[in-house]
């Protein structure tokens, strides 16, 4: 395998080379400022937002607006807006921490997130000088609130199939927008909407639409399963007169904006899931210690302990992956010159390099959170089904994450799809590596890992990257362009990639901490990593096997399966034993602890 230094900074590059601990950003690398920003956010959310939960859930949107204004006063809405336009222009790790800490605010985190993310970023990235000066100062301080309108009743995942049209008037001064946008977060109180419409029914484009202009209205509040405290309505455009100057980016190039914004949206969604998962663990551990059955706290039952330990190890892998991705953004942005950094399009491009990682963060994040809140309800038993317990709301609120910002299915398809596209463009040496593997695989000798902590996991990781090449390379070879039709294989391939990214992120984070503090002090991180890796290996093995069985037959099937066995050979870890120790610590501290 090639192990060029740059490969690790290329989106998807981690699959094709070795990455070292000093090349990744980890939560242990937070600066004092990062920690202070996180604390301000947490204090604000716990002190000001959480007490208003009931009002928010009952659609008292004046409370949402007031809280957004207060958040704006603290600078919590301006992290991604450059100083030049009234924001604070912080690094991506700071804005990631703000998003993570906001997740505690339940559905209010959607109001904040939609405003600073998909609502404001299109202007930050793609607005011209006039548009930025006009809108960003108000958006960065919360004087005005933004919303994002892409989805339509008949176009969800197929976003480019939008039916909303824009027609330039005879005088050539205004576009007339007509159509319906559906499920628009913040729609009850947003002042500014980013709206996608097709000019003359053909050229997909983005517009900044002020609420106050004629022809703009919203439908009734939707009745939803969760995130009830966020406003969701239809945006109705009936010959809305939008000034020509409000066309965002170039006419007919709206898809560039949409796809770039989705990358950030997906990443931020994953970030929120880190915060939500930690809260789920905290609530579950507290409850398990309090609740007595058969005269003992249910925390003393090993079945409950197992749940808590698995929740913790999955959350650890997710947190490691998310902050690693955030670190990649920062590294990529750091390579831009100062003038380039002011060019939003360049910034968006730097982030788009990691479209694969963003998709992984999105689907793995939302599935981790869904798993954690499901077990949190289970640990609470009947009480978890009752609305006065926080986990009941967390459970309902979690479900949408697997659907919006591109369903998890769409995001899974994007992972192998983007890898193949990058390979074809010569950006990733995927095909070369797959070929190289074919020639070396027959003569491959099994390696014995050393006895230091995580050596086996590191050896396996290296081999699992080969499993990915083996399975995906064979699929590409066998189906060619027809691979699009083999969605089950593509899903399996995405799952393998996801587990590899999470495993590697957890291993490298733990290794980085061990290098600094020694293995003894980082025992909890080692255990969380060992558990996650063992379970990820099991999943990868199953996904690879199922794919091979579908693709091959006869001798070739037997050969491929034996290669798979060789590549996944290891001495299995006793996860039951380790999980008991993990759970002990989680229960003692009653929170996610590393």
């Amino acid at each position: 395998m090639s192990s060029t230094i740059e490969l690790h900074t290329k989106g998807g590059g981690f699959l094709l080379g070795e990455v070292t601990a000093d090349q990744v950003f980890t939560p242990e690398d937070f600066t004092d400022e990062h920690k202070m920003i996180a604390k301000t956010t947490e204090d604000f959310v716990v002190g000001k937002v959480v007490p208003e939960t009931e009002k928010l859930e009952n659609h008292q949107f004046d409370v949402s607006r007031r809280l957004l204004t207060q958040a704006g006063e603290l600078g919590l809405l301006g992290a991604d807006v450059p100083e030049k336009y009234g924001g604070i222009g912080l690094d991506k790790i700071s804005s990631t921490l703000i998003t993570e800490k906001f997740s505690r605010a339940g559905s209010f985190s959607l109001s904040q997130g939609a405003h600073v993310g998909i609502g404001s970023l299109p202007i930050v990235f793609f607005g011209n000088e006039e548009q930025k000066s006009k809108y960003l100062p108000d958006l960065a301080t919360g004087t005005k609130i933004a919303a994002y309108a892409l989805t339509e009743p008949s176009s969800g995942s197929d976003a480019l199939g939008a039916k909303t049209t824009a027609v330039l008037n005879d005088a050539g001064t205004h576009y007339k927008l007509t159509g319906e946008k559906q499920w628009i977060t913040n729609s009850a109180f947003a002042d500014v909407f980013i709206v996608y419409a097709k000019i003359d029914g053909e050229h997909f484009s983005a517009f900044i639409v002020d609420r106050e202009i004629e022809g703009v209205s919203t439908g009734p509040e939707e009745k939803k399963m969760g995130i009830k405290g966020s406003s969701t309505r239809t945006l109705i455009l009936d010959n809305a007169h939008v000034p020509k100057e409000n066309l965002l980016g170039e006419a007919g190039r709206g898809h560039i904006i949409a796809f770039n914004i989705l990358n950030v949206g997906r990443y931020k969604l994953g970030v929120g899931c880190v915060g939500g998962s930690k809260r789920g663990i905290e609530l579950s551990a507290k409850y398990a210690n309090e609740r007595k059955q058969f005269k003992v706290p249910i925390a003393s039952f090993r079945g409950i302990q197992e749940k808590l330990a698995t929740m913790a190890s999955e959350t650890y892998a997710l947190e490691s992956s998310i902050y690693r991705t955030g670190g990649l953004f920062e590294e990529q942005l750091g390579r831009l010159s100062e003038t380039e950094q002011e060019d939003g399009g360049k910034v968006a491009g730097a982030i788009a390099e990691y479209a694969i990682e963003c998709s992984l963060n999105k689907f793995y994040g939302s599935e981790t959170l869904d798993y954690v809140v499901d077990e949190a309800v289970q640990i609470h038993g009947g009480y978890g089904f009752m609305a006065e317990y926080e986990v009941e709301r967390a459970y309902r609120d979690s479900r949408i994450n697997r659907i919006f910002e591109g369903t998890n299915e769409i995001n899974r398809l994007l992972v192998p799809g983007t890898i193949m596209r990058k390979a074809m463009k010569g950006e990733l040496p995927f095909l070369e590596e797959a070929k190289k593997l074919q020639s070396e695989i027959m003569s491959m000798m099994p390696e014995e890992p050393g006895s230091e902590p995580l050596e086996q996991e590191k050896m396996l990781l290296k081999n699992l990257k080969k499993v990915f090449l083996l399975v995906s390379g064979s699929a590409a070879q066998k189906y060619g362009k027809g691979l699009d039709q083999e969605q089950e294989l593509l899903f399996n391939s995405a799952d393998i990639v996801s587990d590899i990214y999470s495993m590697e992120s957890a291993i490298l984070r733990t290794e980085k901490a061990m290098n600094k503090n020694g293995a003894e002090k980082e025992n909890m991180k080692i255990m969380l990593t060992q558990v996650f890796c063992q379970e990820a290996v099991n999943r990868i093995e199953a996904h690879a096997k199922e794919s091979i069985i579908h693709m091959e037959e006869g001798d070739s099937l037997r050969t491929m399966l034996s290669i798979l066995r060789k590549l996944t050979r290891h001495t299995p870890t006793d996860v039951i034993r380790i999980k008991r120790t993990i759970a002990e610590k989680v229960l003692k501290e009653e929170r996610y602890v590393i």
Partner: protein
Amino acid sequence: MNIFVLMKRTFDTEEKIIIENGRIDEEGAEFIVNPYDEYALEEAIVLKEAHGGEITVVTVGEEEAEKELRTALAMGADKAVLLNMEDMDEAIDHYTIGEVLTAYFKDQEADIILGGNVAVDDGAGQVASRLAEGLQMNQVTTITKLDIEGTKVTIERDVEGDVEIVETSLPLLVTCQQGLNDPRYPSLPGIMKAKKKPLETIDFDDLDLDEEEIAAKTTTTDRFLPPEKGAGKILEGSTESQAQQLVELLKSEAKVI
């Protein structure tokens, strides 16, 4: 106005206290600005907004306290001073801290010094008063309202739930009680600015102090957690016999009457 704030780094109030060998285990614990000192800091910022001037926040401690000083700077203080005790070989108690602060403040021209009413960790409430005595300065404790006009000061203070109104004059030391104000959160621009604000470290021995003279006047002989709450007892029988039993138990078991 030359405003000073006394600040202490304390255990996060949400932390579980673990005592090992008579010492509180600080491993992995989170620390915060003492919440009562936040009232002092907020009041200082309000004073500065009304009267102008400069806010210096002062703490006695070790290098780790720089983090809490930065938080105070992020909230709005202009300068921070750490009186560093790292090289002190003798034991430290409230007397020591009072002496160190007094020595530092002898060279300062403070119009007003604000401190918390108590620290949430040991709850002694001694240090600010010791400092006022050391400086021979007016002091008013547990204040809940503060008005300054020229050098005339009108204060409301909390007296076991009642309110007492006190008039005095600057220079003055006050300790702040809950209810005085609602401390602000450090804003993000504040946090970014705090990095660039001056934070001065002064070793205690640079204050012309003799280690032995300022050594602790007290020794802590033991520390222990309150006994764990046992299971409750439900008395049975007629109301009269329950009352009888209760009186018995209060005498014989709880020994409170």
